[in-house]
C-alpha cells in the first residue's frame, strides 16, 4: 500500500504535474493542493476501498481456485521423482546408449546401488516403483522386492555390484528395465499427456498404446457427444416450460416455479437413486408399460446401465439450469411484439419463429453453456446409472485420483478437459457472441 501512495508525494516536480499548470499557476483545491493531485488521491482512495471490499472474495478465489488449478496443471508434467530418488543413476544413464541393446556397465550399477541404499533408508524406493509401474508393469514389485535385499548392500565395500544386483532379481539384467527408467528420468515429462491421449513415451518417441488399452480418446468423444445430447434434450424440454412460466399470471407461475425448483433443492444422490428405481427392468416405468401391454414381459426396455440411463437422469438433473436463464430472458420479452406481428397478418408460427424466438435466443445460449459445461464434468450420475457405455471421462479421472493414485495422468486428463471447455467457450463466443448471453 505504502509503495503505491508514495509517488504522490515525490511527483511534485514531475512533468506530468507541470503540464496541467496554466499561466496563472496550477488550479488549486480548497486545501491548497493542486486539484489534479487532490482528485487522483480521492480516486485512489476509492479504488483501494473497493479493492478491500472484494479482497475476501479475491483471496478466496485465489486460494481455493486459481492455486489448486495451477498446481493440478503442473502435476501433469512434473516428474521429479526419478531424478530425485536415483540422482547418480540418472547421470550414468545419460552416458548409456539405450539403443545398443547391451546392459549398462558397472559404473551405473554402482551408482544405482548407492542411490537405492539411500532411497530405501528414506523409504522412497517403493514410491518410485509405483511411479514407474504406470509405464511398465512389474516394476512396482521389482523395487519393493529388491528393496528388502538391497538394503544390506554397502556402497563402499561390496563392489562390484553388477552381478550381485542381477542376482537379486534377474529383471535388473534386462535392458528393457533400464530403458524404461531412462525414458522416464526427465524432470518435465510429456508422458502423462501422451498417456491421456492413448499414446506413450518410448525411447523411440511417442507411440500409440496397444489397441486393447486404448480407452481415453473414446471416453473424451463420448463425454462431448453425450453432453451435447443432454444439452439438446434440455433445450427441447426446457423451452416450452420456460415459455409457459413466463406467460402465465405471476401467481400461477410462482407455484409452477416451485415444481421446477423443488428437484433443484433435492440432493443429487437422492435424485439419481430415484431414477434407478424408475428405470430398472423391474422398475416403475417398465412395470407400467408391461401392465398397459405396450411392452412384452420378456422384452422389457433397457433404460438404465447404458447411455439412455445417463441421458435421462442427467437431463432431469440439469434441466433447472436450462429453464431458469430461459425464463428470466423470456420474462423481459414484451408481448406487444408478437401481437404487432399478428396484427400485420403473421400466422402464429411466423410470429413465434420470426419475432419471439430470436429474442429468446440469449436465454438458450446462457442455459446451453451452463448445462454443457456442468455435464462435461459430471461424475456421480454416470457412475450410478451409466453402466459401462454411459460413463464419462471424469469417472476415469476419479479412478486415477482415488484408486490407481496416478495423479499425473488424472491431472493431464483434467487439463485436457479444461482446455476443451475453454476452446468451446471461445468458439461459442466467436459464433454466437458472449454478449448475446443473458442470465436475466
Amino acid at each position, binding site marked *: 500500500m505504502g509503495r503505491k501512495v508514495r509517488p504522490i508525494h515525490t511527483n511534485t516536480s514531475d512533468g506530468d504535474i507541470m503540464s496541467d499548470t496554466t499561466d496563472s499557476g496550477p488550479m488549486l483545491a480548497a486545501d491548497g493542493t493542486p486539484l489534479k493531485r487532490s482528485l487522483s488521491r480521492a480516486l485512489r482512495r476509492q479504488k483501494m476501498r473497493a479493492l478491500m471490499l472484494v479482497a475476501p472474495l479475491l483471496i478466496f478465489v485465489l486460494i481455493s481456485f486459481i492455486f489448486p488449478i495451477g498446481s493440478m496443471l503442473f502435476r501433469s508434467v512434473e516428474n521429479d521423482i526419478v531424478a530425485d530418488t536415483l540422482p547418480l543413476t540418472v547421470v550414468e544413464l545419460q552416458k548409456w546408449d539405450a539403443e545398443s541393446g547391451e546392459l549398462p556397465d558397472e559404473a551405473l550399477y554402482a551408482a544405482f546401488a548407492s542411490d537405492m541404499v539411500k532411497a530405501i533408508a528414506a*523409504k*522412497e524406493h*517403493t*514410491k518410485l*516403483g*509405483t511411479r514407474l*509401474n*504406470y509405464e511398465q*508393469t*512389474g*516394476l*512396482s*514389485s521389482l523395487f*519393493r522386492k529388491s528393496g528388502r535385499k538391497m538394503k544390506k548392500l554397502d556402497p563402499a565395500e561390496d563392489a562390484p555390484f553388477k552381478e550381485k544386483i542381477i542376482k537379486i532379481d534377474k529383471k535388473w539384467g534386462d535392458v528393457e528395465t533400464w530403458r524404461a527408467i531412462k525414458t522416464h528420468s526427465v524432470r518435465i515429462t510429456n508422458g502423462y499427456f501422451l498417456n491421456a491421449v492413448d499414446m506413450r513415451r518410448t525411447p523411440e518417441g511417442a507411440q500409440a*498404446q496397444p489397441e*486393447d*488399452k*486404448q*480407452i481415453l480418446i*473414446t*471416453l473424451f468423444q463420448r463425454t462431448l457427444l453425450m453432453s451435447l445430447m443432454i444439452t439438446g434434450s434440455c433445450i427441447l424440454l426446457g423451452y416450452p416450460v420456460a415459455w409457459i412460466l413466463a406467460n402465465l399470471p405471476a401467481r400461477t407461475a410462482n407455484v409452477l416455479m416451485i415444481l421446477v425448483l423443488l428437484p433443484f433443492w433435492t440432493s443429487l444422490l437422492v435424485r439419481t437413486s430415484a431414477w434407478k428405481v424408475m428405470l*430398472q*427392468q*423391474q*422398475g416403475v416405468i417398465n412395470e407400467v408399460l408391461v401392465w398397459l401391454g405396450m411392452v412384452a414381459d420378456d422384452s422389457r426396455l433397457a433404460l438404465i*446401465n447404458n447411455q439412455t440411463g445417463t441421458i435421462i437422469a442427467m437431463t432431469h438433473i440439469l434441466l433447472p439450469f436450462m429453464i431458469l436463464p430461459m425464463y428470466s430472458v423470456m420474462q423481459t420479452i414484451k408481448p406487444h411484439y408478437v401481437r404487432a406481428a399478428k396484427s400485420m397478418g403473421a400466422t402464429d408460427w411466423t410470429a413465434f419463429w420470426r419475432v419471439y424466438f430470436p429474442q429468446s435466443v440469449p436465454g438458450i445460449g446462457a442455459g446451453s453453456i451452463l448445462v454443457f459445461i456442468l455435464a462435461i464434468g459430471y461424475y456421480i450420475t454416470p*457412475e450410478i446409472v451409466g*453402466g*459401462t*457405455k454411459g460413463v464419462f471421462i471424469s469417472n*476415469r479421472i476419479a*479412478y486415477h*485420483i*482415488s*484408486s*490407481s*493414485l*496416478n*495423479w499425473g495422468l488424472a491431472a493431464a486428463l483434467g487439463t485436457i478437459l479444461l482446455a476443451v471447455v475453454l476452446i468451446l467457450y471461445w468458439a461459442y463466443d466467436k459464433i454466437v457472441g458472449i454478449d448475446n448471453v443473458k442470465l436475466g
Partner: protein
Amino acid sequence: MKLTKIFMASTALAFAAGAVAAEEMTIVSWGGAYSKSQMKAYHEPYSAKTGVNIINDDSSAEAVSKLRAMNEAGNVTWDVVDVVASDAIRLCDEGLAEEIDFNTQLAPAPDGTSAEDDFGALLVSDCFIPQIVYSTTFGYRTDLVGDTPPTEICDVFDLEAYPGKRSLEKRPIGNMEWALLCDGVAKDEIYEVLETSEGQDRALAKLDTIKDSVIWWSAGADTPQLLADGEVIMGSTFNGRLFSVIEEQNQPVAMLWDAQMFDLDGWIIPAGLSEERKARALDYIYFATDTQRLADQAKFISYGPARASSAPLVSTHAELGIEMAPHMPTDPANAQNTFLYNYEFWADYRDDIDAKFQAWLAK
C-alpha cells in the same frame, strides 16, 4: 480491563479445549453396519476403559488419496484408518503408513502364542494389522434359478442353465480369476496365465460370453439391492452384505460359496503423527486387535476374525441370536474352495489389466 479478562478467559477455554482434544482420536472406517460393529466391539469398550473419545469418519473408500493429500499438506488429522489389504500395501509403499512391530506392539494370544504366529500368513504388509477376513462371493435368488440351484462358480458363466442377468464388480480383480478358472485353467496356474497378454485376452474372451447379461456394480450395496429387486438372478458382493440380505431382511437369496475370493481388512496408523498421538493409536490397536475383541466383532457382522485364536470364541449374533460360525467365510463348510487375493500380483498388474478391462467394457 474487561477486554483483558475476556481475552484471558478465552485463552483458558482454548487451552481447556486443547486438553479435551488431546483425549480424542479420529478413527476412519467404511460406515454402515461395518462401522457399527466396530463401535460395539472396539470403540465403546475402549472409551469406557481409557476415557478417550473416539470420533468416527466414514472415509475409508477414499483413504489412500486423502492420506496422500494430508501428507503433502503436512497435516494428518486421522489417528487410525481401516483399509483393505491392497490399500495398506500401497500406503506402506508410499511411506504413508507406520511400520508395525507385530510381536511387541500387538497383544499375544491368550495361550501365549506371539501375534505374528497368531495372524500367520495374513500379515501381508509391514504396516497392516489384519482385523477380518471377508470374501467376495456370489448370492442367487432361490426363486429365480429354477429347480437346480447353482452349486459352483462356473454356473455364473452358464447362460443356458441359468438365463438372466448377473451382477459383477466393475473391475478386473476377481472376475479375471473366475473367468480363467471356468475356462479350464488349473487354480494354481491362474496368476501365471494372467501375467501374459494372451492369458488376459483369454479371461476377457470368457467374460465376453456373458457380457450382455451382466450388470456391473461399483458399490457394495448394489448387488443386494439388485437381488432384492429381482433385477439379477445372481451376483457377486461382500459376504457380509449377503448375510444381511438373507438373515436380516429375509429375502429369497442363498449363498454360493464356491471359489469365494478371500480378502483382508484391517488397520493402519498414518505416518507423520505426533509421538503422543502415535502412542495413543498404538494403544488402541493393541486393545482392539486382541483375541477377544476380534471375536466380539463377529457378533455384529459375518466377517471372520483374522486371528487363529479368535475363531473358537465366535459366538451368536448379538441381535438375531443365530450361530455366526456357519456364516463365516472361513467356516470349513464354506471354505472348501477358496481364492486368496494375490496382493503382489495385483499391485503390479492392476493398472495394466484395468486399462484393458475398461477398454473391453467400453467396446
